[in-house]
């Protein structure tokens, strides 16, 4: 057999190339081989003994040996293996792509750092913070491992302290700098890979706004830009069209001497409400949105949107206390605001804003975030409406004030605040949390210094986007100021120098808190056991650990002292359990709460830094007042799969982890 095959193939060496190829095709089927060979044996023989394969042999020699079965079959197998390998690689890629979950967008992946620009950093020694100052301090934000900055209103406005009531939506208030400063700031923010969100309050303008001036003179299309009504004047006093009361108290109607009519204002009388039933007004707002997005702003937070529309019938709103009559009602809380807030059609307008923003979201990586900033203390369902539906997108999220609005602090109240958001949030939406805001007292003042760290730990370990108001990372306090409206807006405390490093000028617009020698960024960054140190450790943990980033939240236990929850991810046996103390010193037996809980867990992080790395017994977990623990343990049976916890677990953007491939996939 060996010989005859050799002979047959040797013959192939003599024929022309084309013939040879034909023959090979013919002989490729194994059955035919011997036949061909036996026929061809005859004319061989002369020089066959000389030929032996050797390195560097030419074609003639090679072809006599290369189609031997052992080479040919190996060759074929290898060839098809390579082809199969390529196909497998392509299929694997397609499969992974098809199974990949939608990735977290920038507004989901990073915490948001909210800056009140007048108090952040003063670059020109006038005592007022400004945009250049923010640009100088961008490194502080990257130092916190945060990638999103939210700058509250900086439009040109005569009402400087409130930031409400723009005089010009297209310009920047001179105390904050120029448009060039803003463009430089945006460029600097983007250069650092950060994103920026700004405030837009479309409900009203300042009474100094050009539109209002034109409107009170009944000039062209501006005539109906505001809500004008005839009001009777009798004996020097104005009788308003109805009993509506402004948020700041007293009638929301104000008589205008120029136009001889009353205009409507939900807030102060210097802030006339725009008439959103006028299409031209809506168009103006859309143009403003386009203007700022065109400047490169990555997201807008729409403030006070629930006030956009009012009922056209102008009926009196029902009083809370039925016995009260028209004259005596002067405070906002004395009426039910059925006709001045959240009117039918409001969400259509907000969706219109979304639509305009979406036009700018097409470029990959340039999704424009939309938040709605309305504090509906009582009505969580009304807040959830801003999430939109699965069919019509609205805000990416309405800002969540649950943790700020808590009346008293205890493990129970925190757990209730968390649950109320998670249970009411529509499926598939993304939660968010804030523990401080420009309109609420600082944590240390509101609930006590000893709870600053545990509040930050709560904020940064809940699922969703955390929002940190500037200064909360170092635990700033309200200033004890006679100016009662702004104590939580005192200048940022950078270092121990004069004016806490906020300004090189002689004074600041609000006094710096007297505790700035010990509570400041410079001191705390040198001291690892500080609020700032913990804040950074938490943001790092959040970025590194997938369960904290996008995993399940399961509510495990709460009592008056502690609130306990776990964060876990399908497919990952590493689980994080948070034991946070919002009351007095307590000892908790977690094994009694969670079946199959390992008896020991490692303290990954603690508000008391010295405890990190210790091993604790899960039967006896001791927390001091205001102490928070991030425990880490391994388990094959995570809490969210247990029947006992059905209905206590929530997940947004569900994904599972594959350890083998180190990637996330969806259908699990």
């Amino acid at each position: 057999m060996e010989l005859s095959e050799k002979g047959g193939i040797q013959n192939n060496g003599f024929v022309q190339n084309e013939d040879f190829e034909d023959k090979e095709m013919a002989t490729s089927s194994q059955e035919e081989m011997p036949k061909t060979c036996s026929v061809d044996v005859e004319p061989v023989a002369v020089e066959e003994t000389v030929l032996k394969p050797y390195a560097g042999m030419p074609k003639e020699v090679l072809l006599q040996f290369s189609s031997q079965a052992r080479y040919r079959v190996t060759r074929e197998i290898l060839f098809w293996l390579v082809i199969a390998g390529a196909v497998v690689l392509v299929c694997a890629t397609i499969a992974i792509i098809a199974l990949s979950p939608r990735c977290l967008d920038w507004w989901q992946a990073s915490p948001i750092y909210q800056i009140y620009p007048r108090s952040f950093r003063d670059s020109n020694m006038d005592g007022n913070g400004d945009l250049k100052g923010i640009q100088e301090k961008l490194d502080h934000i990257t130092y916190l491992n945060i990638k999103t900055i939210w700058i509250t209103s900086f439009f040109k406005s005569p009402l400087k302290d409130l930031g409400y009531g723009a005089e010009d939506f297209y310009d920047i208030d001179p105390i904050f700098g120029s448009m060039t400063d803003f463009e430089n700031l945006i460029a600097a923010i983007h250069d650092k890979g950060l994103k920026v969100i700004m405030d837009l309050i479309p409900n009203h303008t300042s009474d100094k706004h050009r539109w209002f001036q034109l409107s009170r003179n009944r000039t062209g299309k501006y005539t109906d830009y505001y809500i004008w009504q005839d009001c009777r004047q009798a004996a020097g006093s104005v009788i308003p069209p109805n009993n509506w009361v402004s948020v700041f108290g007293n009638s929301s109607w104000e008589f205008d001497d120029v136009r001889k009519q009353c205009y409507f204002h939900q807030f102060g009388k210097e802030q006339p409400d725009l008439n959103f039933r006028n299409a031209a007004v809506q168009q103006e707002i859309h143009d403003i949105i386009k203007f700022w997005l065109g400047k490169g702003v990555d997201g807008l937070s729409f403030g006070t949107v629930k006030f956009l529309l009012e009922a056209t019938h102008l009926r009196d709103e029902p009083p809370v206390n039925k016995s009260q009559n028209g004259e005596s009602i002067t405070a906002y809380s004395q009426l039910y605001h059925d006709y001045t807030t959240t009117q039918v059609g409001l969400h259509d307008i907000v969706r219109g804003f979304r639509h305009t923003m979406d036009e700018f979201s097409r470029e990959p990586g340039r999704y424009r975030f939309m938040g709605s900033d309305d504090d509906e203390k009582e009505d969580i369902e009304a807040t959830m409406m801003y999430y939109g539906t699965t069919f019509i997108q609205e805000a990416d999220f309405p800002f969540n004030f649950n943790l700020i609005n808590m009346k008293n602090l205890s493990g129970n109240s925190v757990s209730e605040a968390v649950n109320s958001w998670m249970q009411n949030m529509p499926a598939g939406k993304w939660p968010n949390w804030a523990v401080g805001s420009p309109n609420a007292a600082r944590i240390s003042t509101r609930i006590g210094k000893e709870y600053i760290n545990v509040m930050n730990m709560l904020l940064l370990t809940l699922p969703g986007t955390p929002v940190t108001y500037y200064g909360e990372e170092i635990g700033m306090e309200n200033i004890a100021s006679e100016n009662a409206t702004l104590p939580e807006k005192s200048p940022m405390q950078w270092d121990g120098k004069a004016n806490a490093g906020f300004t090189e000028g002689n004074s600041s617009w609000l006094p710096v808190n007297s505790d700035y020698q010990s509570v400041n960024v410079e001191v705390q960054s040198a001291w690892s056991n500080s609020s700032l140190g913990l804040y950074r450790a938490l943001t790092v943990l959040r970025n590194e650990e997938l369960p904290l980033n996008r995993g399940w939240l399961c509510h495990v236990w709460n009592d008056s002292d502690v609130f306990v929850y776990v964060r876990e991810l399908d497919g990952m046996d590493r689980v994080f359990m948070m034991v946070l103390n919002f009351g007095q010193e307590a000892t908790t037996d977690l094994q009694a709460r969670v079946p199959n809980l390992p008896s020991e867990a490692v303290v990954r992080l603690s508000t008391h830094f010295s405890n990190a790395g210790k091993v604790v017994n899960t039967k006896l977990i001791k927390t001091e007042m205001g102490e928070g623990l991030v425990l880490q343990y391994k388990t094959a049976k995570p809490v969210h799969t247990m029947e006992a916890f059905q209905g206590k677990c929530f997940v947004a953007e569900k994904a599972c982890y594959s350890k083998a491939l180190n990637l996330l996939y969806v259908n699990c």
Partner: protein
Amino acid sequence: MGEESLKRRKGEDKGREDRQSIQSHEPQTMNLQKQVGLISGICMIVGTIIGSGIFVSPKSVLANVEAVGPCLTIWAACGVLATLGALCFAELGTMITKSGGEYPYLMEAFGPIPAFLFSWTSLLVTKPSSFAIICLSFAEYASAPFYPGCDPPQAVIKCLAAAAIVVITIVNSLSVKLASYLQNFLTAAKMIIVTIIIVSGIVLLAQGKTDNFKDSFKGSKISVSSISLAFYNGLWAYDGCLTAFNWFTLSLNLPLSIIIGIPLVTVCYVLINVSYFTVMTSTELLQSQAVAVTFGDRVLYPASWIVPLFVVFSTLGSANGTCFTAGRLVYVAGREGHVLKILSYISVKHLTPAPAIIFYGAIAIIYVIPGDINSLINYFSFAVWIFYGLTVLALIVMRFTRKELERPIRVPIIIPVIVTLVSIVLVLAPIISAPELPYLYCTLFILSGLIVYALFVHLKFRWAQKISKPITMHLQMLLEVVPEEDVPE
């Protein structure tokens, strides 16, 4: 004189082509298929030089000079410089008509050791790693649309890159014709997107969108360091020239392709930048993640999806071009005997340098596997400029040492001097601006070639032969490859 000999040279070329066409009817002679014409040649050059860089990050130049006018000037100047470099290589290529990239020039001017080090570095590191990098960036662009807002998982990028390497390797080792058809198609795609960008830019300009060009030199930041850095970044866009030069010296086809190709690329680069600037201000351009995509989004919507698609084609084209040329480089190195002979063998059936291409693909796949190769390979890129500079220096040296050689093309001596100086700057600039240990490791790796040289080339250990001979034989059988037969020149 120069012109005359050029003509003669062309005549020779034609003669050789004729011979080849005769040869193709006589399949007994084992020779590499060289079925590449002038148009394909220009395509190959344009296709290799225009990488994906111009679509993704033309901003590095702008970032250094900060104004539109100087930016465009520098792009044009880089093109001129690249053409000068090409002319130097044209002189070398017509003077020493051996193929093998920079190797024969280094050999003639400096002796075997630098030449060996060149082969050593380029075969094991620079060429396969650049193939790997191009395939990785292809994979990134191709998978990016499926992961809006975040980075695709490494598994996806690596799978796709490996798939691209395998497919390109298969195509190139199966058929030269198929490979060059593929290349023509991908280059056509690239030229289409380049044309779309240029034409829409011109249309917008004609409509009067010239705001961004007013005071185009205003606010520019011009200093020696900023300009040299801008040049540094700009020249990288012409990096593919190196491959093109190598390819030219492989005597595939005529200097004409280069003389048409590089200025064509320069014109394209400048016009593309003009288009970008009509649509974007310099700040916007600096902020954009992928400039061409932003451009497409502003100008071509709702058809803006074609831009990323064509950018993907374009990267794939670069990958194929790199494989096509570098496979041949390995093959030549094998034939000259600085790597295993088997690498110079030619497939009996397909007339392609299959072992070289397979070797190249295999090494590239190895580079794809580890975690973060990009950074490491960036460090190695300075090695590319060392050898580039050395080659041009070789031109200067040979003007004095090898006066007797006939030089059909003779460039003024100042051109190689300039190019050498520029190479020195490009080698030293990154090391001085950010001195890091990896540069030392790279240098050590290059020098480690000396040990290999001493053991296997200089001393010629017999045991090495004993092992390699049977391996060569069996591989020959397995792959059906044979040595190229000498072509009577």
